[in-house]
């Protein structure tokens, strides 16, 4: 067996480990793999061109940027922060758990397009979570702010991934059915979808516990802020 195509995998791992620009890394990896598999540079350009034509739709999220940009200029994010501070009992962790539950349930019934990083997480969820955290801790430390934002995106991903697989008409379920049908094993989509539920419950439980611990962390930061340690001026950040 020819192991040389793995050269591209090595380029990807090395490139991401060295934190080189991913665009360059990916193109280099494509050429390395092609070289290892005996695909010439011109044939490879052709392969890249065909693949681009088929996967262009992946950039579709940029179509949400104009309306989100316009609304942000008119105070969308500020209003989202303000709205959440009027909710009694809203904490960063609870807002995220509510979003997680909603997003995962919606995905499980096939409504995967109800959220998304460009149209929901950046303009609505992130400011709401920040607003809820600020209610407890007005001067939110910068590292914690950045963590909250990253956690918003992470929550959207976890909820989507482990919700959508329960929906029987979802592409992944049909892909699995088609694969086994090709290999002579007949499966019902409903059966595949139902066996996604145990993992979906585990995902909600594991991520939910982490979100509850987030609130405890904010309370600790609050306690630390109220008992200022003299001469502990380490405002350096986490660079």
């Amino acid at each position, binding site marked *: 067996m020819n192991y040389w195509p793995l050269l591209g995998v090595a380029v990807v791992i090395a490139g991401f480990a060295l934190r080189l620009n*991913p665009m360059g890394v990916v193109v280099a990896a494509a050429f390395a793999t092609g070289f290892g598999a005996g695909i010439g540079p011109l044939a490879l350009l052709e392969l890249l*061109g065909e693949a681009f034509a088929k996967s262009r739709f992946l950039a579709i999220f940029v179509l949400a940027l104009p309306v989100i940009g316009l609304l942000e200029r008119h105070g969308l994010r500020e*209003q989202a922060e303000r709205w959440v501070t009027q909710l009694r009992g809203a904490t960063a962790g609870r807002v995220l758990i509510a979003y997680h539950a909603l997003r995962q349930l919606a995905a499980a019934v096939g409504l995967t397009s109800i959220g998304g990083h460009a149209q929901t997480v950046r303009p609505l969820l992130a400011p709401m979570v920040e607003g809820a955290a600020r209610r407890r801790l007005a001067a939110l430390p910068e590292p914690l702010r950045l963590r909250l934002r990253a956690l918003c995106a992470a929550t959207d991903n976890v909820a989507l991934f482990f919700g959508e697989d329960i929906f029987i008409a979802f592409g992944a379920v049909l892909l699995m059915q088609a694969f086994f049908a090709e290999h002579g094993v007949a499966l019902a989509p409903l059966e595949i979808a139902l066996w996604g539920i145990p993992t979906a419950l585990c995902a909600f439980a*594991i991520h939910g516990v982490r979100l509850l611990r987030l609130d405890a962390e904010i309370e600790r930061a609050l306690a630390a802020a109220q008992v200022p340690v003299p001469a502990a001026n380490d405002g350096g950040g986490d660079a």
Partner: protein
Amino acid sequence: MIGLAPVYALLGGFMLFAAVSNLRRAERGSINNAAFWALLGSITLVADWLPAIVTGAAIVAAAAIAASGRMRGSRTADAATPIAASFSASVTGAGSPFGNRIFIPALLIPAITVTAVLAFKAAERAGNPMATAQHATLLALALACVAATLGACAMTREPAPAPLREGSRLLDAIGWAAILPLLLAMLGTVFAQAGVGEIVAELMRAWIPTDNRLACVLAYALGMALFTMLMGNAFAAFPVITAGIGLPLLVQQHGADAASLAAIGMLSGYCGTLLTPMAANYNLVPAALLELPDRNAVIREQVATALPLLACNIALMYLIPFRTA
């Protein structure tokens, strides 16, 4: 059938607008942004009519511009200020002059998308299909974005170029990360063509004691997660790892129930998606959208969920598919 031509027209047109507005700007590096978006906008518009080799060359050129590090945007620390400032300029408690009405156009996006998807499905059931199932969601999302933009213009009384200007500002802040998912999908195609998956499956089969059920379960679940991390996509990993390990070893040799094995195997792959920069649209694009200085910040937050969940999947895979055996 409508096809995706309208989606490509909107996408390409918007990228070309971003190119032109970068040309008009006199800042350092703008010319590189203009060239980058002009290349990508043009091939997005006309890839169906170009020879594939020209499209491929244009992508390599765009990647070279991005890799040169000369693009203006949130990635270069000095130029991050205008948008990053808008991001943090909140908490005066001022809210929006429009009050809660400002949410309406934003909420129109999911509302119209879902309605349009259901409408496409209804048309299909009525024997009058307008789009394939995969295209329906994309067309619905594009339609919803256009409608929400028009609604927002009407509400704020801003002229039509205003949203395009704000949008291209955001597009420049995200920069090349917006295009990375496409490139990674292309790399996946090249990997598949070169047979990388078959090599990985063969290497794993050679290493594991195949008559031990636990070893096979571990190989399948971890193989799905690892290969998904390499490809950035569990859909690409599933046929390869299932044909290499799941079907011959677990189903045929150890008598596993195929339906539950497949479901849990795919979800083990999803744990890998949470851990890899190769899944750029889920992991790197949001880091850019949220203007996080560390581009792996989202992955870092996902590790503590993905690893325990992968352990749960291994336990479930050891128990559920063998419940009758």
